[in-house]
């Protein structure tokens, strides 16, 4: 690979994308994908803090069996808003909108995404949608659960369903446009020599996730729109009083919202692929299979939504088919986990912070995935449906998987994004705290759920108290683990050591640009002449 930057990796540019110009407008009107990534980073971090506060309130209430801290109505709003904020305004944009936005053009040797103005527009759409949701939260909140099931959401709830629903509807288009931008960029903007099977697996994972964003999100958008029309204009599409079918809503909702889990996890899997090969100093095991498994997850992921409806009156035959398809989608996920561990096998593993998150991801995602198989089995699912077992399962995927990947990626590329190194010791401590706190929070929930504690109630039977106190204690540890990175990342932007172009000795075009990159990414068009992850060939010079 030949660029000017590669010849002098430690040379620090006098101007780069962060100091190219100053002022609020230079950020609010930017079309630079790197700056838009930073805009997203700031906005979704704020939403994460907000969603986290709701989680804290939930765990506080559940310390005691009696519903003594919040009224049941308030509690309903707390878990609803926790879900809406975390799913639609943090997890779905997290890796793609921040890391994907920043890295995809750099990784494929392009100067920007294909549609830079649409990229900025999607951030504004996100903010607009968030504003609706915040309005709903401030004006009394919403209590339908993040799933908006009718007829409660259409005919009975007297909370801010409309504003919250419109917020979700609007922010969906931000996701659609981001996915559209990624697909076109990956197809049309690759550097000369960068064939499909030389692409970083991070890019493959984003391609697969983008397919879901473009083809899935509009379905939930129109579904929420129909709920909104039913609430405001009294159109009766799901209304059982007219002979309408509320289960139709559930089908439409989960047609998106199950694949949405893959929007969250696939990009994180892409991060893990990059990290595991870099910190094992070994070419990734089974590149083509990992790439193909991303697509397989995206495609099969569209065919499993019915496992959310096992107790909703589906026919036994339908349940059987969806159960089988849900088992199928575990195969490509398992392939990835096996290939990552095979990559580590006999690698020279270096336990820097990003690698700690990889190890955390592997363990937690495996538990989350395996318990997913429990839930894909119709008989067992009917036993544990709507219990804390389900809550624990999807938190192992969305928090233990997706957020672990996000944090690992954020640490890995932080020097590239900001030009500064974060304090490694603190970061390792935080990674361990996150892992311990997470397990203490959510593992007891598997047990308490299996024993029969239902989700979404503010009180519970007394025999569940010990496990719930453990969970709440874990949540407070987890909170510390999440606060620490926020603090030392902010600290490092001013006081961190200057980062070299390639602090990890990693492969990939993004590391051949200076840290932070210049606005146009590559002064000269890079040309790719080798396969991805050629770690075995020659010893890299790690400049620190």
């Amino acid at each position: 690979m030949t660029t000017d930057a590669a010849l002098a990796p430690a040379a620090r540019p006098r101007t780069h994308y962060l100091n190219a110009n100053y002022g609020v407008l230079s950020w609010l009107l930017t079309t630079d994908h790197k700056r838009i990534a930073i805009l997203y980073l700031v906005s979704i971090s704020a939403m994460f803090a907000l969603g986290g506060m709701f989680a804290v309130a939930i765990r506080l209430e559940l310390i005691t069996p009696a519903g003594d801290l919040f009224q049941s109505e308030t509690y309903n709003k707390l878990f609803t808003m926790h879900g809406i904020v975390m799913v639609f305004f943090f997890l779905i944009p997290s890796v793609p909108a921040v890391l994907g936005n920043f890295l995809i053009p750099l990784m494929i040797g392009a100067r920007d995404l294909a549609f830079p103005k649409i990229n900025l527009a999607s951030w504004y759409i996100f903010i607009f949608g968030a504003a609706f949701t915040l309005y709903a939260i401030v004006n009394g909140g919403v209590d339908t659960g993040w799933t908006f099931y009718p007829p409660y959401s259409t005919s009975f709830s007297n909370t801010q369903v409309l504003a919250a629903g419109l917020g979700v509807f609007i922010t969906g288009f931000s996701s659609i446009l981001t996915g559209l931008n990624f697909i076109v960029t990956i197809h049309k903007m690759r550097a000369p020599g960068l064939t499909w099977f030389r692409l970083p697996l991070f890019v493959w994972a984003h391609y697969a996730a983008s397919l879901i964003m473009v083809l899935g999100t509009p379905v939930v958008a129109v579904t929420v729109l129909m709920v909104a029309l039913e609430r405001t204009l009294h159109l009766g599409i799901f209304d059982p009083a007219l002979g309408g079918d509320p289960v139709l809503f559930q089908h439409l909702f989960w047609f998106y919202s199950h694949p949405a889990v893959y929007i969250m996890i696939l990009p994180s899997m892409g991060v893990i692929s990059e990290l595991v090969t870099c910190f094992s100093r070994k070419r990734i095991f089974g590149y083509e299979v990992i790439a193909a498994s991303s697509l397989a997850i995206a495609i099969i992921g569209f065919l499993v939504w019915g496992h959310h409806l096992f107790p909703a009156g589906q026919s036994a035959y339908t349940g059987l088919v969806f159960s089988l398809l849900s088992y199928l989608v575990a195969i490509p996920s398992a392939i990835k986990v096996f290939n990552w561990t095979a990559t580590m096998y006999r690698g020279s593993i270096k336990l820097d912070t990003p690698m700690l998150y990889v190890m955390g991801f592997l363990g937690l995602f495996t538990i989350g995935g395996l318990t997913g198989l429990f839930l894909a089995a119709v008989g067992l699912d009917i036993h544990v449906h709507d219990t804390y077992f389900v809550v624990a399962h999807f938190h192992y995927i969305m928090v233990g998987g997706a957020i672990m990947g996000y944090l690992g990626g954020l640490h890995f590329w932080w020097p590239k994004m900001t030009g500064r190194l974060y304090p490694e010791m603190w970061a390792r401590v935080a990674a361990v705290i996150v892992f311990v706190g997470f397990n203490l929070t959510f593992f007891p929930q598997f047990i308490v759920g299996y024993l029969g504690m239902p989700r979404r109630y503010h009180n519970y039977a007394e025999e569940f108290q010990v496990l719930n106190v453990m969970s709440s204690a874990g949540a407070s540890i987890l909170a510390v683990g999440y606060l620490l990175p926020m603090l030392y990342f902010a600290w490092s932007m001013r006081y961190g050591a200057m980062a070299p172009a390639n602090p990890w000795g990693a492969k990939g075009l993004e590391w051949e640009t200076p840290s932070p990159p210049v606005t146009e990414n590559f002064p000269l068009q890079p040309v790719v002449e080798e396969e991805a992850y050629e770690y075995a060939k020659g010893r890299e010079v790690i400049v620190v």
Partner: protein
Amino acid sequence: MSEVAHHHPALAHHFEDLGGQKEASGLGMWLFIAQEMMFFGGMFLAYTVYRNLYPAAFAEASHHLDWKLGGINTAVLICSSLTMALAVHAAALGHRKKIVLFLIATVVLGAIFLGVKVVEYGDKFEHHLVPGPHFQFEGANARPAQIFYSLYFAMTGLHALHMIIGIPILLVLAWLAHRGRYGPEYHTPVEMTGLYWHFVDIVWIFLFPLLYLVGHR
């Protein structure tokens, strides 16, 4: 960037040439249309489910729609697709006046369609066929008929909204074409808007028989 000297003004900084830029726009537009299909698809699915559940009610309710007005509107929209295609063709040939003429013709036909739609909606209000507390429908099928009309208003309303978004875009294009922005080497916006307009027309081609003709034999 190396070859700043010969840049076409419409060439963005991150593309090598106009051809590549146009290819990217085309792929982006087709993806957008794919997401539009999924967007409308949700409502078409709801229609399919309920028509299978309540075929008699749907046929009966459909009789209260004016198939003649719907038919006229179908013809109007097909004509507007023709004028849109002619506008794209004129842009590719660089006939500035013809681009403007055909774009304005498309706008006029779109406006006629929306005008007819207003008449139809008004008629439904008068006959209490708008879902809600004032809905009135004779016979045993009153409740599923209300579902039919819910879908009618949701689907045609969403379709009309797409036309309402399209018309100002066409007007801006006409203005820019008048200013001489588009010629044989660069007319991507005209072509992309054309794709959008044709898509919106095709949605109607499906809506018309499903809503207006389903009760006729």
